[in-house]
Each structure stands twice: as C-alpha cells, then as structure tokens.
C-alpha cells in the first residue's frame, strides 16, 4: 500500500534540505523565505511506496501569502496520510505555533525536531520523549543536513500513516474560547470531527475564506457566537487565540526544554550581523562582495592582475576554443563530402548561434555557483534588508537589487535571479527593467560608434553616458510601472534572517545546476530557432540564394526603416542591425561590418583596438543619430535568449509581450528624446 507524506514547516527550518535527503531529488535549497512556491513531489529513496511532498514554507495555517494558502489547502483538503512537521529546534517556540495548528487539523503527524546539532552546541537540551508524550505524536530528533535520525523519522512516519492514531486532545484555549468552539461545532455538519474542530477555530479567528464556505442558515447563528466572543475578548478573538497558543507553547517549552543560558544569548550569527548589517559597514562590505562576484565571473584582469582571466572567463575561453575546433572539423567534413554552399552556410551559422550560447554558459555557471553560495549561506537575506531603504525610494523593495546588478553582466541569469522576489508586482517590474542595465554584449556597439564617430570626444564618457541613460530609464520605469501595475504600494519589509551557515557543496551544486540547465536548454532552443530564421532571411530572396543586399532581410530592412525616421537613422542596414541584435546584441557590430563593407572579424578587432573601424557609417549616422541608435539598442527588446528567460520566469506569453512592448515603447521614446536633444549640441 502506498502513502503520501507531506513535509510542513516554517521557512528556513531545513524542510527542503530534509526533502532532498529523503528523496535524493534534484531540488532548490534556499534561505529565502517562501522559495518553494510550487508543489514538489518525490518518492522516499528507501521505499518507493512512500510519496513525499514538499509543502511551501509557512508560519501558520492562516493564509497570509500565496504559499501559505497552498500549504493549508493541501493539508486540510487533500489530507495526506501523514504530515512530517519540521521544527527548527533553535527557535522552538515560534516553530511550535505551526505545530499546534497542524495538530488541530487532526491529520496524523510526526514532529521532526531539526537542527539538533546546533541546539546541543548551545548547551541546550530538548526532551523529545516528554514532548511526544504531551502532544501524543512521535517527536524525532534529526539533523537534516547530515542525515542523522532520518531512518527513525521515516519509521515513525510510516507507522503513523498506516496506524492513523489521533493526537492527544490538547487543552490550549481558555474556557470561554473552548465553549465557543463547542457551540460552533454544534452548527457544523460536514466533515470529520477533526475537520469540525479546525473549522470552528478558524471561524473564531475571523477567517474569511472559511466563513464563505458556510450555508447562509449556519452563517447567521455562527456569526452571533463569533461576535459574542469578540466583545468578550475586547474585539479581537484572533489575538486572544494566538496569545493562548503561545502561552500553551510557553508552558510546553518550560517542561521540555532546558536552556544553558537564560535571556539573550549572542550567537555566531548575531556577531556576524553586527558587522554585515552595520549601519556604516554594510554597504561597503556588500560592494566588495559584489565586486568579487563580478570579477570572478567576468573579469579579464582578475584581482587586478593584468592578463589573469577569472574562473568564468577562463572556462568560457576553453569552451569557445573547443567549439571553434568542432566548427572547423564540421566545416572540413562538410567540404570534404562536397556539401552544397547553402547547407554549409546553414550548418555553420547554426553552430555559431549555439556557440554564442555555449560561450556564455561557463559565465552563467560560475555566477550562479557563487550566487547560490551567497543565497544558501544566508547573506542574500541581509542584502535585501540593507538595500531596502534605498530601493523603497524608487518604489521597489530591497529584494530587487541582486537581479538588477547582475543585469550589467548578462540579462539571462539576472532575469532568472528575479525569481527570488516574493512579491509578484516587484518581480514583474524588476524583470521589465533588468534589460535596461546595459549588458556586456551591448558594449561593442558603443565602442564601435565611439571610435568612429566621436573621435575627438572623451570616449569613456560616451560609454558611461549610455550606461547612465539605461540606469535613468530603469529608475523612471520602476516609478511609472509601480503606479501602473496592480498590487498596491510597496509592502512593509519583514523577513526572517536565517542563521548564517556554510552551505553544503551538494546543495550549492544542485541549486546552481537547476538554473544553468534551464538556461542551456531553453535559451539554446530560442537561439537555435532564431539563428536559422535570420540566416534564411539574409541568404535568400524569391529567386533563390543571393547577396545580403538583395535578401529578404534587406527588403524587410527597407520596409521598416521608415519607423526610425523620427529617431534619425532611417537606413535599411541600421534597421537590419536592430533585428540581428535580437539574436545577440554583439551581432550588431558584425552585421554592420558586413553591410558597411568590412570583414566582420576585422571590424571587431579594430573596435577593440580603439581604431576607427567603419568610416562608411559616418555617411549614415550623424552624432545625434548615433546616440539615438545606441540608446534604442540598449533599451529595446533584449536578445532572444533574454526574452526566453522572461517568458520562463513570467510563466505567461501575455506578460512576456507586455514586457517586450514596454521595452520597445521606452526605447522609442527615449531614443527620440535623445536624438532631438543631442541634435542641439552637435
């Protein structure tokens, strides 16, 4: 016979770690409260008959967030055969608040007392046997991170699920509330006695979701009982119930927990927080951490040592070399077997397209390994808190900072990082503005114009200016979108800060791999498809294969160039550049190379050497038009890989299109303003 056992517990109690240990499943482990929003299922690795379900982290069974509703609905309505309630032994009082509510549901329960190693290190003692006697359910001490006690836990859970012994009837509430519960129960007809007990308590707590399920006839009489109770409890039965639960827990803890020291005990985490969240030091330390993170991922001169590539750059170089060699082999092979020109062209351009993604993959991998480490260590929660003050001014919460910062490297991992944002509105806005942070691939575009058109200006200032335009667009957008989108004001910031822990290698690897896998597969398919399409369009017209100037792409460029008249660059080649930029932004430089009569590799080399690369573009672009063109390509739809990431994280085409639409509109308006404003100066 098979059973379903659900894991329930507070955020950060080690629930996901336990789930991974029990199922061996590949799954995200995070320190952000509420990170497991979806239902996650697996089977117990030592008994395939036992299905395990990882419920979202929840502080109580009263719905506050979407996660809590999911957890509660599952426990109450779908009724697993047993619930394993994980309790963080280091904050047992707060954690038992959920335990009491789970027991109220009457579902067979086993309590897993987690973090027992840390409890012992503090010199505290928890008498699990006594706790078990009082509650009437098994209480098993475990250490989820090391796997200690898990066999005993599962034995107890198996026994509980098959035996279904109810927990003790706990006397938590005072006479008044107990009597009101009994009165309400008399008017309830549906469900098991356990269901009725639970429903009655929730009705007294003023739970609107439950109240709506009542028949009109019941509702009136029950409301009278609730109102009567409210007036006895000076208008707040809910607070009285919460209070009595905590009082009960207080007594329970007194009987079962021996603390080595009373009062406030300063832990290692407290000491670290004094430095890492310090009023003065927090920001400089965070800046240093972020610098190291980026340097390790993107830097060509790692740790300021000229020519020393960072681990990310070094790995990317290896992949590019390997891919180049493979492409060479394929080219040689195809030529040897006498493949036709178009077949060769198609295969090679596809390989280039995939190679562009493959070259990014090591960067993404290194970035995510480091980010996963920071997240699992508990530091990210502090960063969100420290940045909250600054971001609140722009209508965002502190949690948006990480994705936006990562956007300067590459939008794709940045967009994926936005999933750590709890608030739906914050997450959507962050995703919409992340591409405004100028990514690494856009830099060659600015350099190309800077060295060609702005020979006598400070070229660094031109590049810096473009970055600033992106930043300003992002800030203004956060403000505007904050007013436009539904979801109310920026919510108050309240978040549990988990204890600092050195993450296990296994959890960091699982965590990083989850994200990189998605990047490789989804972004790869989008890139691949678009590469084939653009190649076809740029190599053919109705009479067959042709030069680029006569291709479909040129016709399309000519057809759409009128759109850009107000922006100052109504040229088919410029238009085509915008389109090829959507495959990969650095493509624009290569496209210009081909269309303005250069060899693309040489153009890129000249650009990086700071030489005047493409004199021909001065005939098409005025300086103001060049500014407009750079601005437009910075702000308009990001590359397809990033759009794929937006689609995946938004989870809907509607919102993906809205995001892209917003970016296009912003790009057009800002480029228009830039063109006319800069026209006054040049």
């Amino acid at each position: 016979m098979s059973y379903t056992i659900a894991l329930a517990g507070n955020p950060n109690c080690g629930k996901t770690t336990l789930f991974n240990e029990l199922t061996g499943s590949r799954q995200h482990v995070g320190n952000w409260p509420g990170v497991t929003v979806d239902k996650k299922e697996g089977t117990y690795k030592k008994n395939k008959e036992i299905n395990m379900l990882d419920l979202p982290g929840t502080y109580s069974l009263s719905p506050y967030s979407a996660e809590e509703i999911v957890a509660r609905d599952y426990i109450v309505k779908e009724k697993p055969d047993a619930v394993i309630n994980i309790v963080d032994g280091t904050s047992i009082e707060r954690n038992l608040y959920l335990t009491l509510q789970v027991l109220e549901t009457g579902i067979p329960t086993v309590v897993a007392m987690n973090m027992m190693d840390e409890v012992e290190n503090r010199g505290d003692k928890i008498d699990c046997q006594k706790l078990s006697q009082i509650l009437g359910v098994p209480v098993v001490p475990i250490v989820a991170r090391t796997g200690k006690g898990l066999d005993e836990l599962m034995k107890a859970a198996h026994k509980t699920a098959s035996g279904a012994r109810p927990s003790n009837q706990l006397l938590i509430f005072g006479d008044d509330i107990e009597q009101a519960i009994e009165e309400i129960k008399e008017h309830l007809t549906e469900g098991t006695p356990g269901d009725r007990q639970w429903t009655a308590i929730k009705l007294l707590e003023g739970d609107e979701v439950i109240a709506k399920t009542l028949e009109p006839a019941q509702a009136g009489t029950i409301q009278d009982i609730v109102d009567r109770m409210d007036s006895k409890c000076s208008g707040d039965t809910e607070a009285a119930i919460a209070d009595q639960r905590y009082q009960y827990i207080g007594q329970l803890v007194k009987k079962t927990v021996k603390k080595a020291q009373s009062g406030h005990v300063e832990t290692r985490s407290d000491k670290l927080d004094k430095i890492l969240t310090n009023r003065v030091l927090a920001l400089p330390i965070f800046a240093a951490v972020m610098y190291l993170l980026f340097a390790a991922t993107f830097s060509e001169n790692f740790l300021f040592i000229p020519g020393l590539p960072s681990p990310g750059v070094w790995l990317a170089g290896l992949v590019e070399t390997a891919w180049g060699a493979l492409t060479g082999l394929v080219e040689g092979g195809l030529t040897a077997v006498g493949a036709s020109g178009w077949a060769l062209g198609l295969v090679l351009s596809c390989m280039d397209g995939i190679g562009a993604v493959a070259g990014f993959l090591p960067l993404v991998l290194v970035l995510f390994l480091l980010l996963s480490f920071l997240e699992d260590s508990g530091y990210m929660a502090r960063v969100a808190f420290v940045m909250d003050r600054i971001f609140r001014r722009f209508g965002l919460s502190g949690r948006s900072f990480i994705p936006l910062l990562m956007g300067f490297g590459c939008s794709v991992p940045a967009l994926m990082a936005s999933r750590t944002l709890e608030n739906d509105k914050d997450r959507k806005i962050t995703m919409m503005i992340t591409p405004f942070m100028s990514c690494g691939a856009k830099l060659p575009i600015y350099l190309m114009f800077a060295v060609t058109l702005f020979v006598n200006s400070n070229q660094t200032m031109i590049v810096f200016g473009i970055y600033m335009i992106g930043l300003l667009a992002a800030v203004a957008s956060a403000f505007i979108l904050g007013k436009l989108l539904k979801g109310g004001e920026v919510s108050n910031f309240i978040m549990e800060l988990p204890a600092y822990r050195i993450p296990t290698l296994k959890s960091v690897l699982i965590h990083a791999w989850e994200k990189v896998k998605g990047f490789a597969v989804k972004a790869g398919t989008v890139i691949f498809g678009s590469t084939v399409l653009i190649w076809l369009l740029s190599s053919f017209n109705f009479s067959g294969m042709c030069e680029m100037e006569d291709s479909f792409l040129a016709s399309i460029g000519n057809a759409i160039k009128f759109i850009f008249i107000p922006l100052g660059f109504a040229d088919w080649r410029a238009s085509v550049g915008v389109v090829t930029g959507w495959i990969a932004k650095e493509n624009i430089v290569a496209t210009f190379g081909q269309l303005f009569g250069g060899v693309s590799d040489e153009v890129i080399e000249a650009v990086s050497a700071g030489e005047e690369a493409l004199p021909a573009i001065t005939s098409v672009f005025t300086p103001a038009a060049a500014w407009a063109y750079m601005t437009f390509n910075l702000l308009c739809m990001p590359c397809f890989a990033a759009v794929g990431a937006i689609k995946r994280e938004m989870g809907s085409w509607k919102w993906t299109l809205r995001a892209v639409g917003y970016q296009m509109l912003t790009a057009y308006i800002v480029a228009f303003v830039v063109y006319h404003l800069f026209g006054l100066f040049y």
Partner: protein
Amino acid sequence: MALAMVGIGETRTITELRVKEEMKRHLQDLGFTVGEKVYVAGENSSGLILKIKGARIALNRGLATKISVA
C-alpha cells in the same frame, strides 16, 4: 513608545500592534503578540533586527513605528 525608538541591546515588551488586520496576523504568526518580549539586536538605515522567540527578524522602520512597546 514605538519599537523604532528602542536602542540596540534593549529588551522591551510589546503592548500594541497598530497595523492592518492582515499584517497583524502575519506578525502574530512570527511571534509578535502583546506581552511578548522583543530584543533589539541591531539597526541600520533600513530598519531593525529583532530577536523574538529565538528567531531573528528584520523589519523596516515604518513597520517598527507601528509596534508599541513598554
């Protein structure tokens, strides 16, 4: 007085939660009930870090002004 006014290292007792129904419920779930002791472990320009019922909670100053303590 408001919780936001309490200095680092001080322990106070919560006397009132002056917030909307939903936030009140969430605060209660996190251990903030009238009569509960709360220790201020740290503060910065974003807000306060509190110790309550053995857990470490960060909250912004705006919210901390709505929690009364004695």
